[in-house]
């Protein structure tokens, strides 16, 4: 059988990486375009699935005054794009002992006083690849609504793009993390049933049964497994 060679010439676009022009196939993500151009990425890359937030990047388009921000693994290249590699977002996380702080706005402001410099410009919201209402969360923090901050930032990836763009220099993602921790530690409804079960385990309620299982041979375990009670379909 003759070998059939399919030659499809991919459509190429020009991108500029750190000022240098490269031809890359259209349809690649920014991350893949960087690798296609020969860069080996050891920082600023992670899950490649839009979840870890490691590949936050900024870019510009020709003839457009705007500085765009997005995740490099989720954004496809456009012709004439100016790309840069950002290893991470520098931002300071203030130290605190979660057991010693209160779930109030005062805690947020004491650790992150930059919050009070928010001028409601909404640049943070515009730069969020998760399309979160970032400024609304800053505002909720300012008025001490820790639960609201936690709710609004639940899907934050900590990519740091809002922090990079903020004229008030708020380290957003550290504030969000603190708010979610405060929420979890003090405000979320307690899972009483979980505490009850942990207590039962500690008191040895299941010890006898577990000891019996661990003393069985593999064969006996298989038999027991086959004979297990199965829910009727």
């Amino acid at each position: 059988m003759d070998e059939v060679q399919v030659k499809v010439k991919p459509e190429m676009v020009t991108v500029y990486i750190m000022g240098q022009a490269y031809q890359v196939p259209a349809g690649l993500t920014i991350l893949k375009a960087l690798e296609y151009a020969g860069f080996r990425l050891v920082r600023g890359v992670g899950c490649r699935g839009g979840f870890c937030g490691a590949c936050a990047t900024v870019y510009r388009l020709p003839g457009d005054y705007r500085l765009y921000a997005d995740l490099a693994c989720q954004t496809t290249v456009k012709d004439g794009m100016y790309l840069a590699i950002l290893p991470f977002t520098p931002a300071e996380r203030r130290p605190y002992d979660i057991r010693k702080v209160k779930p109030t706005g005062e805690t947020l402001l004491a650790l992150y006083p930059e919050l009070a410099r928010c001028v409601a410009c909404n640049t943070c919201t515009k730069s969020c690849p998760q399309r979160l209402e970032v400024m609304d969360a800053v505002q909720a923090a300012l008025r001490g609504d820790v639960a609201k901050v936690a709710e609004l930032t639940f899907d934050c990836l900590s990519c740091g793009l809002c922090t990079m763009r903020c004229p008030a220099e708020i380290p957003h993602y550290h504030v969000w993390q603190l708010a979610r921790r405060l929420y979890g530690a003090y405000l979320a409804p307690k899972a009483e049933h979980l505490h009850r079960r942990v207590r039962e385990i500690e008191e040895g309620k299941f010890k006898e049964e577990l000891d019996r299982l661990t003393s069985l041979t593999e064969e006996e375990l298989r038999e027991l497994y086959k004979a297990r009670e199965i829910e009727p379909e």
Partner: protein
Amino acid sequence: MPAELRPAESHTSPVTRHASRVLYFPGCALKDQAQEYERATLAALGKLGYKVEELPRWNCCGTVYSLAQDDLMRHVGPVRNLIRVQEAGEEKLLTLCAMCYNTLRRSAEFVKDPESLRRINAFMDDEEDYRGGVRVLHLVQFLAEEIGEEALSQAVVQPLEGLRLGAYYGCTLLRPKEIGVDDPDRPEIMERILQALGAEPVLFPERMECCGAYLTVTRPDVVRERVGEILLSAAKAGAQALLTACPLCKFNLEERRPLGTPKIPVYYVGEALAWALGVQEIPEELAKSQAGVIR
């Protein structure tokens, strides 16, 4: 009504207005340090038959009005709030905090200049354009001018008779005069309200003086001096309590008292309203001075 308080005449957008619906801007302090002001006022306005609705997705008013020449950025926050009013189909915004009133109202005035409005709309490309025409008003204007003293006094169920109350205006309700709720040198709007509520308003010379405001952070000594003068002036005039509309004034009047200053309690003007309308009890420290009053 002074000319500057009249609603702007040009407003072409469709507006759904219900006589009893009032859109209200709380501000950060009323959700945190000054919750009693909000609680009392909303209960009282409810008693008066108003449906007070919190402005959706409001942000900080801007806190301090910027005096920089190139201050477009400082107007973005306040104007964004005005856009929220527009989105809600209203043209009036009620404020309780004196500082929020000042900042929002001054920004509303600022964008009456077409060039300033154009620039701010161009910057806020993530929002619909602000069309202008939102009227920012403070609680005391709402009480004295929208409701009126007569209707107010008719709604009183627990007259504040025998209470000698001093209205402390401070700065942001009165200055600059273009946006003041009353004559900045001889204000009487709060006194008129107190009178309608059955109280005896006490005029004292320092009632329009500055409390020292944010110097409370860097120069508490300056604030202490000012607060001492204000409280002494109020005590000499015979005030049993002071009423304010500003959380920062209240903080300073309470927390920056020099030793030996007259022990005059400070309340929010909305609290006095709530007492008179019977939705809150008159505090014991004041109620006992009412005991001798013959009704």
